């Protein structure tokens, strides 16, 4: 296919009762043609739609929260109110519930993480953008690696470089016989599985959501043909797209919340070694 992203834009002449089957969208809708290509010091950069969306989201966050927080007033303006409400949400609902008062100095990190993930997810249902950059595995992976470095560093700093690992692998009050099985499992789950599942969870949710929306809208176009069944099916599929878009919005917000929540709980685990 020359231009994969144009196929799903409704430019196929394949309809019900035609000679072709249902053109089910696959992984090709996650591949984009590069717009700009350049190389710096031998490293190739190719800028495509996801990269642009990512930069756009970063820009939106920087500009919006600069306006909100750079010149705080005692009587807040509208933008400052929104900024403060969202900050208090992350602090009270995510940080304090998981880490407690000691977590207040991690709130800026969690706050940035939450809004970066949320807005990137949200781009999946914004008309015109309609692609969540987080559905490509690299972006959640880098975010998860940042989280991994953060909680490893905090753990080593607060519990000591070696103590951090021994506390993790040999929790107190566990019978010696079980430790032989428990220690490697704990080590694996904390060091390797955690960042992996953190990234995969976000990526797979966005991937599935985007694919689902595409399937319904492609079905709506495919079924559109001059027959009763065609019109009814097309309308039903189109309606389903609208409903699923609403559902996607819920999933996007929930996944951003879960990503931040798990980050907070990992940090809490690094700060104290009771559990």
């Amino acid at each position, binding site marked *: 296919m020359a231009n994969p992203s144009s196929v799903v834009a409704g430019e196929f002449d394949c309809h019900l009762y035609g000679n072709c089957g249902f053109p089910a969208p696959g992984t090709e809708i996650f591949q984009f043609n590069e717009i700009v290509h350049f190389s710096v010091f031998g490293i190739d950069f190719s800028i495509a739609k996801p990269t642009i969306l990512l930069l756009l989201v970063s820009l939106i966050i920087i500009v919006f929260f600069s306006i909100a927080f750079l010149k705080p007033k005692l009587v807040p303006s509208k933008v400052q109110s929104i900024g403060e409400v969202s900050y208090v949400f992350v602090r009270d609902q995510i940080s304090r519930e998981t880490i407690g008062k000691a977590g207040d100095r991690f709130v800026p990190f969690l706050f940035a993480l939450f809004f970066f993930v949320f807005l990137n997810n949200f781009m999946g249902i914004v008309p015109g953008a309609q692609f969540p950059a987080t559905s490509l595995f690299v972006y959640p992976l880098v975010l998860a690696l940042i989280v991994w470095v953060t909680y490893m560093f905090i753990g080593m700093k607060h519990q000591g470089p070696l103590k951090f690992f021994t506390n993790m692998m040999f929790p107190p009050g566990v019978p010696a016989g079980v430790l032989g099985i428990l220690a490697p499992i704990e080590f694996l789950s904390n060091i390797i599985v955690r960042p992996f599942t953190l990234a*995969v969870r976000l990526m797979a949710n966005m991937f599935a959501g985007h694919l689902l929306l595409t399937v319904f809208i492609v079905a709506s176009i495919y079924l559109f043909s001059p027959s009763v069944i065609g019109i009814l099916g097309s309308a039903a599929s189109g309606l389903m797209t609208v409903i699923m878009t609403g559902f996607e919005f819920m999933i996007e917000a929930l996944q951003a*919340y*879960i990503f931040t929540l798990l980050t907070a709980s990992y940090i809490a685990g690094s700060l104290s070694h009771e559990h």
Partner: protein
Amino acid sequence: MLSVIAEVTGSLGAVGYGLAAIGPGIGIGIIFGNGVQAIARQPEAYGVIRQNMFIGFALAEALALLGFVAPFVFK
């Protein structure tokens, strides 16, 4: 040498995802069921219960999502 005893063809990815969704489905049901029950019994602990509910939900859901991604990876 062992020749093929049984073979399945077709959309194995879909079948695999269906199998992968059984366990997490039951798990998420239990998590939210018990979570709602706990909130009903002790509404003042809503924050902590919801917190742990979502952490458990995220951990259980990860398995289903791995099942969803696997067919795309191991084509």
